[in-house]
């Protein structure tokens, strides 16, 4: 098995601390016994408790719900909801029937959206961070500017975009049609096929500053000497980026890309605010789809089954991703 952290870590095995340096240590903070084996567990405890309470227990309830016929008839007394076996799942994966077909469509749309949005956010964020690594006049101001999309409340940012994307009165069509004259027909951005593009642009606008932030922080831990050594070797700017910057960012990138992926895949706020209650087919992200299949139609069993399927898919992707990235890093 591979490890999940950088192999540079050379922690002592067996849960023991390195031998105390000399006999000079002053009053130990913790009893010897705890420090020897229990300290890491103690450090993890708060995180673990919260994860169990807020994530794992509700998740288990969600899994339980997916095997129940939890409709409006049972929601008031839902421990009495009849056992549905695999029925909820069967309906969800039957791609020949409308429910399964719609879910499949929504899943594929989400995959395409996630790959494009994460790719664009990462690329833009990394490029901007690298370009702004050296000091220049106005760098601080520019950096703050780039963080604005991230600082606006999601609702405010997305409602502004929906305002700009209106067909008749929006800025986007004003520029495309009235000012540049690119087309005569005013295209719809919030309906039909274009809604995918609209969603992609809005989501990328909103998430690239995050990639920028994380990569900027990551760049700080690259020792200056590496660059200096490379410069002495005569390596140009671009080669330094390729051979030093990007490889050093790998541990940060590994987490960043994965988290952006999970986030984008499960994003609810952006499509919900952009399209309100019913997203067009071309932009029907899975999170919205599940919301429709549980909250709007009050069938929580079916919605849970879809979520569990999604969870399994994401687990698989994450496992493969971690295996691949770790292997590459180790080789």
């Amino acid at each position, binding site marked *: 098995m591979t490890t999940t952290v950088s192999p540079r870590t050379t922690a002592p095995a067996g849960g023991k601390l390195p031998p105390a340096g000399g006999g000079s240590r002053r009053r130990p903070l913790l009893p010897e016994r705890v420090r020897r084996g229990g300290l890491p567990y103690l450090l993890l405890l708060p995180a673990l408790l919260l994860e169990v309470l807020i994530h794992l227990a509700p998740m288990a309830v969600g899994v339980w719900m997916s095997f129940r016929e939890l409709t*409006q008839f049972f929601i008031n007394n839902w421990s009495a909801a009849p056992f549905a076996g695999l029925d909820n799942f069967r309906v969800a994966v039957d791609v020949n029937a409308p429910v399964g077909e719609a879910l499949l469509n929504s899943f594929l749309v989400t995959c395409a959206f996630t790959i494009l949005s994460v790719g664009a956010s990462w690329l833009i964020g990394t490029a901007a961070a690298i370009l702004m690594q050296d000091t220049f006049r106005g760098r601080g101001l520019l950096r703050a500017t780039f963080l604005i999309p991230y600082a606006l409340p999601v609702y405010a940012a997305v409602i502004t975009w929906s305002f700009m994307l209106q067909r008749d009165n929006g800025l986007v069509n004003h520029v495309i049609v009235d000012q540049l004259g690119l087309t005569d027909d005013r295209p719809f951005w919030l*309906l039909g096929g274009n809604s995918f593009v609209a969603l992609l642009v809005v989501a990328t606008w909103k998430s690239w500053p995050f990639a920028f932030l994380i990569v900027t922080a990551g760049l700080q831990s690259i020792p200056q000497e590496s660059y200096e050594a490379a410069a002495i070797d005569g390596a140009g700017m671009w080669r330094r980026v390729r051979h030093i910057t990007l490889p050093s960012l790998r541990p940060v990138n590994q987490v960043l890309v994965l988290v952006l992926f999970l986030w984008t895949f499960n994003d609810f706020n952006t499509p919900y605010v952009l399209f309100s*209650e019913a997203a*067009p087919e071309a932009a029907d992200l899975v999170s919205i789809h599940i919301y429709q299949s549980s909250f709007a139609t009050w069938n929580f069993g079916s919605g849970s089954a879809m979520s569990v399927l999604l969870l399994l898919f994401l687990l698989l992707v994450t496992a493969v991703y971690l295996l691949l990235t770790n292997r590459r890093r180790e080789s």
Partner: protein
Amino acid sequence: MRRRRAAAAALLVTSLAAAVTGCGGGGAAQGSNDNPTTLTYWASNQGADLEADKAILTPELEKFEERTGIHVELEVVPWSDLLNRILAATASGEGPDVLNIGNTWSASLQATGALLPWTEENFERIGGRDRFLDAAVASAGAPGQDPAAVPLYSLSYALYYNKAMFEEAGIEQPPATWDEFVEVGKRLTGDGRYGFGLEGSNLSNNIHQAYVLARQHGGDFFDESGEPTFTDPGAVEGVKQWIDFMAEDGIVAPGNAEYAQNQSLQDFATGKTAMLLWQAAGTTFESFGMSEDDYGVAPVPTPSGTPGQGTEVNSMVAGINLAVFDNTDNLDGALEFVEFMTSDEEQAVLNAAYGSIPAVESAQDDPAFDTPALNVLKDALATSAVPLPQVPEESQFETAVGTAIKDLFAEAAAGREVTTELVAERLTEAQQQVG
């Protein structure tokens, strides 16, 4: 070793979940009078904004407290949150004592069993069922069952038309039949202006209109036993007629397909469209600078031109109902509060403030409701309005069919042909989703 640990962790999580579900469904508890001095009340957003609602309701609640000694905790819940808050309250049993619900949710919420059923006995305690409009009570729960709520504010649809634009086009009377409507609409369309405006992406508005049109074609979306019949020929015709105002007749601007935030009201107020079907729209027109004299209000057209019952209905019964959570800890207080809110006096005050119509017949005599616009709405409610299907699957219906109509408008706006077959196909898919 590691495996055993993981198994232990899994066990811990499942048992936690079991503990939670075990005591879930606290909503099953019966009502009591353990807490006779306070009530929690969730009001829906009826006024211009949340603060306006509070300003309207607070003095009335103080009046109630003066009379009964019961303090009412008021929370005005925005529409975007209301249904989710109610669902969470229903599932957990942790909710208000009294709450407003959209009347189309009545049967769905009734099916959960979380709301107090309005038996004859309960109705007696608030002055009797006969005080309320028949149509309004019919929209408070499934037929044949005790209503799940009591009507509070009522509304119906009317045809709003721009007087100046009608005069300019030489039209003397508002259209009474759909044929006239389309004909007039075509005369009013041109030069960037359109005869009619609608909200193509607003799911519930689509449902309201398509439902009435379907009834006019002798169709319905549910049969007697409550089974969905979305592909009933009358239902298909109704939906198609609604889409055709844009697709076939061309009296609706294509841009209306994406409207969902009352943009059509602004278009009307600013003279871009000449006609609109809406519930009391006066205050919104005013906020866009249109005065009361600039527009006329007429009954919504019907096939024959004379609104009535059967295929001559011309509005759905719109409105807000007042419900009591079955597990309230102040049952007597809650009933007293409902009695207070539905008293003639309060009905007049509140409905006048919100521009709606009293659900209590005797309160309608108040001069505040004797305006030309409200008289049209009142007539429709009394004679030609029909409640939306009162079935537990109503919310699935609104979501599935409303979305189908929205998608059809998108097709029409993109210039593609909308045939009867296409409409039937989309409705078939919608029906299979409700399943």
